[in-house]
């Protein structure tokens, strides 16, 4: 009887030790606190199955800049996310990346709820990572090769374990990590932000430009690109802005909605850091802000597809004077966030 008792005791101890062991080694990642400027939306798009953690964001950042994300050794032209998303260019590409559309900036996407890309066809950042890694004109990688390649490295298995609880790398966790990093790219410290917070005054010209930006009788930018009441500087919605009057692009918004009315419509990009975001428009046709302003001033084309908000089209554009155009440009420069462009 005594022997039985001892056996039971020993078994119990062994079991307890065995069950405790994994918990003792289990690394608990630290929750990442996404900055929440007071005038930003309160609802973000962080998915329930991919909460942001310090470790996840750090891993995502490493992958974002790591050429090994291509799953190749470099002899055949490796690429990574930062090949086309340059921080100094608002995390977009300053030239032609050889894509169907120009590269879109990666700014404040944690608060985007309308899909990604110029036509909004990609639902989530996680999906966008998969699309970019596998696209023949982007990273052009085989996901199973990427996983195998990273698994063989010395550093990644431990980083994945810290972020996701397992040394076994999966592609979905690669997607999750990069998506976490991209969600952490928050721009909220431009001069205009400081003006909204009451910390800095705009100059007379900048203020005049802001008035033009925010008035229908001025440049009428605010309906699509926000302002003080919509500080993301975009609605993230889709508009035909009168760039053309014939529409042949098979990947415009109508490709997603199937609606004839969405021919020639594209997402209104954020104007944050717009001064360093050239080239402009979905096809990158404008290389300077002056060209963009001139287009909205006198080059808007009418068609049955043009968005009703482009009501100055009947005059060809908003018809600003040269002084007003310079003031508008001065305001647009206040949207540049040097901290954002240098700290990630």
């Amino acid at each position, binding site marked *: 009887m005594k022997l039985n008792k001892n056996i039971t005791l020993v078994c119990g101890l062994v079991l307890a030790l065995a069950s405790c062991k994994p918990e003792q080694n289990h690394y608990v990642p630290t929750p990442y606190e996404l900055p929440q400027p007071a005038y930003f939306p309160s609802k973000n798009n962080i998915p329930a199955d991919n909460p942001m953690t310090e470790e996840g964001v750090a891993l995502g950042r490493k992958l974002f800049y790591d050429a090994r994300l291509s799953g190749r050794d470099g002899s055949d032209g490796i690429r990574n996310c930062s090949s086309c998303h340059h921080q100094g260019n608002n995390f977009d590409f300053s030239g032609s990346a050889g894509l169907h559309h120009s590269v879109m900036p990666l700014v404040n996407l944690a608060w985007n709820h309308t899909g990604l890309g110029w036509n909004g066809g990609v639902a989530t950042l996680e999906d966008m990572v998969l699309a970019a890694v596998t696209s023949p004109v982007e990273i052009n990688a085989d996901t199973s090769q990427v996983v195998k390649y990273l698994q063989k490295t010395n550093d990644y298995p431990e980083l994945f374990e810290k972020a996701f609880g397992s040394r076994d790398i999966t592609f979905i966790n690669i997607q999750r990590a990069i998506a976490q990093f991209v969600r952490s790219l928050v721009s909220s410290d431009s001069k205009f932000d400081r003006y909204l917070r009451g910390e800095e005054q705009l100059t007379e010209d900048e203020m005049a430009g802001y008035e033009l930006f925010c008035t229908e009788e001025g440049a009428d930018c605010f309906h699509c690109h926000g302002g003080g*009441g919509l500080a993301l500087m975009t609605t993230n919605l889709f508009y035909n802005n009168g760039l053309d009057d014939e529409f042949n692009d098979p990947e415009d918004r109508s490709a997603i909605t199937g609606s004839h009315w969405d021919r020639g419509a594209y997402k209104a990009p954020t104007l944050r850091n717009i001064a360093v975001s050239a080239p402009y428009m979905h096809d990158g046709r404008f290389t300077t802000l002056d060209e963009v302003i001139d287009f909205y001033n006198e080059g808007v084309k009418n068609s049955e597809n043009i968005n009703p908000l482009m*009501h100055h089209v009947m005059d060809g554009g908003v018809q600003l004077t040269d002084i007003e155009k310079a003031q508008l440009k001065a305001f647009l420069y206040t949207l540049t966030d040097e901290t954002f462009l240098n700290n990630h």
Partner: protein
Amino acid sequence: MKKSFFLTFVFAVFMLVSCKKPASYGELCVNIGYSLNGKALVTDSLCYCNEAGNEFLITEIQWFISKMELLEECGEWVAFEPQFFYIDTNIPENQTLGIKSIPVGKYKTLRFVFGLDEEDNRTGLFTDPPESEMFWPDLLGGGYHYMKLNGKFLDAEGRLAPMAIHLGIGQNEDCTEFYQNYFTVELPIDFTITETSENQLDLTMVIDNWFRNPHTIDFDEFGSHIMQNQAAQQALKENGNDVFRIGKPTDNENNTTMENGNRFAEKFKNVMQKAAPKPHFWTWKSVKERMGSPVGTTENRQAV
């Protein structure tokens, strides 16, 4: 005199007692609909005509209702949450306004604010889309659009022109004075809230009425960029007096109850007979095909 005072006092006490909140509550769904030219609105595809003779289509209507209340038979107003409703023809699910916890009983009036009143209409009230997309720049008075009614119309020269009828706070020329353009709507009802979630009330915006009575709105004058045009804001505000009615959009199909509506229906019928016998309403495609033809010109419309 003393006796009548006593009776009034007793009656008042009785009314107060009778209006005491009941122990039971029901839920209410207010179903939003839109009527135009005597039919339920179809966005993006049908062409309509207004009192001024403008031919147009509507792509979307986005607007706010706030401070909705019901008047009990005993004379007590019952307010409820939520206080603000954003309604958008692009979002089918928000065409039904769900209201919980309304005391059961009989109600005789529905009251609400079209837009947002000065107490509520402040920048920052909404930080999330889609409501935040309605923001009205601080320079123009701040807060939010009461309504965006967007579409296209054929202008006086027969050109396809954007229509953007946006209502909100008005301002004088140098933006130093601001004018509240919201208004309160009161509609008689005979409605009983029961202790269920099945209570349904239909509320229709009669779009035609934005553009007539007392002011005939010509889109060539007030069809777009009116945010800085208080004369347009005021005219549309005054036209708003009979824009809403209780009932479904199709309740008065082809038989609008207003005098102007009858005249308009007749006029519209003539236009259709002359220009487009089929279908019953012009399709936008047919308008497009006719663009450049004299049908859309001022002369032709006057002839009609």
